[in-house]
C-alpha cells in the first residue's frame, strides 16, 4: 500500500500476426488492441466509434472470432492471429462481402463498414446460408448510423450466395 500516484509501467514485448504478417512490438500494457492496430501498425481501417464496447466499429477477427478490439488490451492478443479489414481483399480482388456491400449500397459514410465486414465474415464462416435473423443477430453489435441496416442485410445475403456458389 505504498504508491498511489500514476506511474509509468515497463513496456511489454508482444508478437501479433496481423493479416498473415508477424509484428513484434513493445507496448504499454494499457494500450488497447485497436490502438495497437491503428497507431503502431497504422492499420487505420479498424475504427473507433464508442467507449463502451457498444458500436462494433472496431471489430476484427482474433483467431477467427469476431471481437471488438477496443475491449482487449494489445498484450492480450500476444501470440494471436488477427485479421482486419485491410486483409480481406486479396490479389484476386475484393472479398465477396466487400463487393456485395458496394453493389447493394450497404455503406454510406463507410465508418462502420470495416467492423461490419469483419462481423459478417465471421458469420459467413460459421453459417454459410444465414437467415435474416442470423444476420441481424450477428451485426446487432455493429452500429451503423447511415444505412438503416436494410442494405447491409441485403449485402450479406448476396455475399453468402456468392461464397456458396464459389
Amino acid at each position, binding site marked *: 500500500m505504498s504508491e498511489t500516484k500514476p506511474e509509468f509501467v515497463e513496456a511489454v514485448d508482444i508478437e501479433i500476426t496481423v493479416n498473415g504478417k508477424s509484428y513484434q512490438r513493445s507496448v504499454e500494457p494499457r494500450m488497447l488492441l485497436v490502438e495497437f492496430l491503428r497507431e503502431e501498425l497504422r492499420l*487505420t*481501417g479498424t475504427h473507433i466509434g464508442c*467507449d*463502451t464496447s457498444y458500436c462494433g466499429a472496431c471489430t476484427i477477427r482474433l483467431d477467427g472470432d469476431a471481437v471488438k478490439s477496443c475491449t482487449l488490451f494489445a498484450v492480450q492478443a500476444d501470440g494471436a492471429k488477427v485479421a482486419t479489414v485491410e486483409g480481406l481483399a486479396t490479389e484476386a480482388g475484393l472479398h465477396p462481402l466487400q463487393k456485395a456491400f*458496394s453493389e447493394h449500397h450497404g*455503406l454510406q459514410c463507410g*465508418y462502420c463498414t470495416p467492423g461490419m465486414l469483419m462481423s459478417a465474415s465471421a458469420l459467413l464462416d460459421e453459417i454459410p446460408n444465414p437467415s435474416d435473423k442470423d444476420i441481424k443477430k450477428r*451485426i446487432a453489435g*455493429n452500429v451503423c448510423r447511415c444505412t438503416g441496416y436494410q*442494405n447491409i442485410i441485403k449485402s450479406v445475403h448476396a455475399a453468402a450466395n456468392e461464397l456458396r456458389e464459389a
Partner: protein
Amino acid sequence: MEMKFDGEFSVAIPRQEAFELLSDPQKFAPLLPTFHSMEMKDEKTANLKVKVGIGRIYGVASTELTLEAAEAPLRAEYVGRGKVMGGAYNMIAAFDLEDAGDETLIRWSGETQIYGKVLSLAGGSMRGYAEAEINRLIGSLQLALSSEAEAAAILAARAAQPQGLWQKLLALLGLWSPPEVPVLASEPEPQEKPALRLLAKPPTRKVLKADEAPSTLGKIAAADSIEMDRKGSESWVGSPLRRKEDSRLVRGNGLFVDDLQTSDMLHLAMVRSPYAHARILSIDVSEAQALPGVITTLTGAEIAAVMEPYMQIGPEPGASIQDYPMAVDKAIYQGEPVVAVIAETPRIAADAAELVEVDYEVLEAVMSVEAAAEDKSILHPGSGTNKVWEGVYEYGDLDAAFAEAAHIVKIDRLHFHRFSSTPLETNGCVASWDNRGEIEFFSTNTFPTIGMQMMAPALGVSIDKIRCRSHDIGGSFGNKITSYPGMTIAALASRKVGGQQVKWIETRNENLLAGGHGGERTFLDTEVALDANGVITAVRSRHLDDCGAFPRYEPLGCVIWSQVLPGSLKVRNLRIDFRQYATNKCPAVPNRGYSRLQHLWFMERVLDICGHQLGIPTDEMRRRNYIDEFPYTTPNGCVYDSGDYHQMLDTAKALIGWDDWKEKQRQAREEGRWLGIGIGTTLDSGTNNFGQAQIVNPDAPFSGNSEVCTLKIDIDGSIVASLGTVPSGQGHETATAQVVADELGLGPDLVHVRPGTDTARNSHTGHSGTYASQFAVTGLGAVHGAAVKLKKEILRLGAHALQAEEEELEFGMGEMGAQLTVPGTEKAIPFMYLANIVNTNNAGLPDELDDVSLNVRYVFRPKFELPDLEKKYGNLTLTYAAQVHIAVVEVDKYTCQPRILGYAVVDDCGKQINPKIVEGQVHGATAHGIGAAIMENYLYDEGGNLMTSSFSDYTPITALNMPDLTCASQESPSPFTFNGAKGCGEGGGAPLHTISAAVQDALVAEGVIVGDTFNSATAIFELLHGKGSRSSVEHQSLAG
C-alpha cells in the same frame, strides 16, 4: 493540331514491285522504324507492336495499321493509330507511284497527330518530332527498296543521330547519347529493325510490369473504380450506379480525421465541467503539467485573453451572449470544456486531464424552457435574460377562422424531445497554427465555411489564413456543423506549442455530452379551428424552443421551421408565437430534418388529435386536409414545387396492406391487445434561402444560397472536379461524375472527383457545405454549370484545333478516352490533346482563345428574393420532397414495449440522380426517426446530469431493433430545378409522426394523448400511469 508533310524519292525498282511492297501490310509494317512484332488482324490490318524507349525503361506499344486504299500499281494508303507512354498518335501515309524511266518515283504525303503527356515534354517543337517520325518511315522504306550498298550508307549516317520521337525528346533534355555500336555483339540486330540498336543497354533493374506489380500497387490502381453499367437508364444521371467512394471505404482505405497520423503530432484531451451550471473558482494544472509527456495546458481565461467571442447570428438579447469555445468564468452545461491538456499521446493527455483540479461553486441549473422563461437563474449575464429570440408568425385571419369554426380543439402541451443522429465518427480535427500565421484544419466539420466565418474574426485573422480540409467523414447529419469551438481550441493549443499539429478527437461520452444535441421544443396552448368536415382552418400556438447553453447556429432554427409552416395541410390561418431560450444543456445543433421536423411533428400530431376528437379516421383526415395543387404558395409565401400526397398515401396503404391490418387490429382489440396503425406525412424542404436569417435578424449578412464546382481538364487530360460541398457519406463523388459524364459524353469513370473538401482548392463560397438537403440542387447545379462552361471551352478550342465549326463537333469516346470528333471525317481530338495545348503547348494559339483555360469555376445561385421581413413572408426554400410513412405498432400490455410489426415508406424527391443513393438516404433517415421515436433520448436529471451519456444508455438503433422497411418511390420532378431533382437527405423525421400516431391509435381506448415524440416502453408506461407530464385535450363542437 494537324501536321502535314510530303515529299518524293526514287527507287531503282519497277513500279509493280514497289507497289507490291507498299500495298502489303505484312511487308510494309516491318519497315516501320520501331517495328517489334506483328499479327495480321485481317488481310488489310496488322496489329503491330512497336518498341518505344526512354532511358532505361522501354516498353512495347500497340498500333493498328490498316491499308485503307490500294490501287495497283498507282497508290497505297495507310492509316495508323497507336498509344505510347501517356500519349498517342494517329497517322495517315499515302504513296503515289509513277514510272520514271527504270526507276519508280514515289510521291508520298503524310499526316500525323500526336498528343498526350509526351507533348508536355516536347513543348512547342512538336512539328519537328512528327517530321522526324515520318522521315524515319520514309527512310526505312527507301532502305527496303534500295540496293544493299545504298542501305549500308544510309544506316551509317543515321546511327550518329537521335532517332524517333523518344530519343529526340531525350536528346533535348540531355538524356540521350549515341549508342556504342554494336550494342549486342552476340545478337546482331536484323537489318530491317535498325532502330533497335538505338535503345541503349538492357535495363539493369527489373522493369515493373502491371501484372507483376506488388498487390498494394494493384489495389491503388483499382481504388477509384466505378460501375460502368447504366442498368437501362438512358443517361448516367438516373442510373443506380455503385459509388466511386466505395472502393476505398470497403478496403478500410478511407481517410477519416483520426486516421491522419504523423510522428510529431500532439494530442489534446479536454477537462470538462461535471456540472450543468457552476462558477469556476480556481484551476490548478500543476500536477497535470508535471506528468511526463505533457506539453502544456490551456484554460478558458488564457483563451479569452487572446480571442474575441464568436459572432452571434441572432439580434438582442441573444446578441449579447459572450460565446467562447471554453468556459471562462463559469460552465453552463455538463461537458463544457474547462481546460485542455496537450500531450505526446492521447493516453497521457487523458491521464493528465484527470490530474487537473478545478474548484467549482455550483449554481442553479435551468433545465427546461419553462424554468428558463422565469429568468430566475440566468446563464448569460451579458444578455440579462435566458430568452434568445422571440417573434410572432401570423398569417390569415385567425379571429374570423375561430369565429366560423364548427369545432375547436385545444391541446395544452406537446413536447418534442432531445436526440441527435449521433454520427458513428465523433467530432474532431487535426489543427495547426504555425509561426507564419497559417491555420490549418483537417476536420470533420461539414460546413467549414461558416466555421471559418465564425473563427476568423474571433481569432483576428483574415479568413484566407484558415484552411479547412476533409477527406472522409463518418456521418454528420448536421451535427458536425458546429464543431468549430473544439477546432478553435485545438488551433490555439497548436499556437501555444509553436505550431505543431494537435489532434483533438471526442470520445463517445464527450460527443453525447457536448458534441451537439438536436433541438427540443415545447408547444403550448394550441388551439385548432376546424370546419364541419374536419378540415383544419386555423392553428394558433406558442412554441418554446430550447437551444441549450449557446445558440451558435441555432437562432436560425427560429425561422427554418417556417419553411413548412402548414406542413402538408391546406390550412391558411396560422399564428405561431415562437420563442427560443437558453438552458443548461448541451448546445443545440442542426440535426437531420433540422427545425422542420419539430414543426412537422406538431402539425401531424394536431391533425391526428383532431381526427380522434372528431371521430374521423386518420387516412380520411389527410384526404380532407392535404394540399393538392402544385405549385402551392403557403400562407407565408413558400412555394411547394410539386408532389402528389394523395397518391403517396394510396401507395403507402397498398404497401403496408392497410385493409388487412385494419382487420387484424379489430381482432387484436377484441383480444384486448394494443395494436395501432399510424400515418405520418412529412416534408423535406431543401436548398435554403438564407434570406430567412434576416427574419431572425435583419442585420444578418446572409441571403440566397450558392455552391461551387471547379472543373478542369488537367495537364494530362484527366477530368477533375472539386466541390464546395463536404460529403459525409452521401456519394457526392459518384453523383458529380454522373452529371459531368452526361454533359461531356464520357463515362463517369473518367471523372475524378476530389474527395472531401479543401478551401485551398478555391472551390467554395460562404454558403458551401453539406446541410439542408441541397446537394442534388445546389451542389449538382454547380457541377452542371461547370460542365456546361467547360464544354463551351472544349468546343471553342476543339473547333480551332480541328479546323472545324463548333456545330460540327461531337463528343464521344475514342481509343484515347474522351474526345471530340467531326463526324464523317477522320478528324478527332482527345481531351488529352486539348489539355496539352492550353497547359504546356500554347505557342501560336490565336488571341480569341486567350480566355480558354479548360479550368472553370462555376458558382450556382438559385434564384431567391429577400423575404418581406416585416410580414415574415417569402419563399424560404427551393424544393419540397415529401414522404408518407405508415407504421403498425403493437404496445405490449405488460412491458409497454412498442413493437413495430410493419413499416412502409413512400418517398418523392423529384427526379432521382442515383436511385441507389436516394434509397440509402430514405432508409437512413427512417432509421434515425425510428431510433429517436423509441430508443434515443438525451435525458437530463433536475441537476443537469445527462443520464444517457454513453451508447449503453443513449442506445442507437441496431439491426435487431430496426424493422424491415417496405419502400416505394414516386418522382414528381421539381419545376424549379435544372434537373427536376429535390433535396432528399433529411427525410423530415417522418417516423416520429408515424410512431406517435401508431402508439396513439394503439392506446386510443385508454384515453391518453400521445403528447411526446419519445415513446419508449418507459415513456409509454409513464404515460399510461400518469407519471410525467400529460397532454390534455378539449374539444368544443360549435356547429349547429
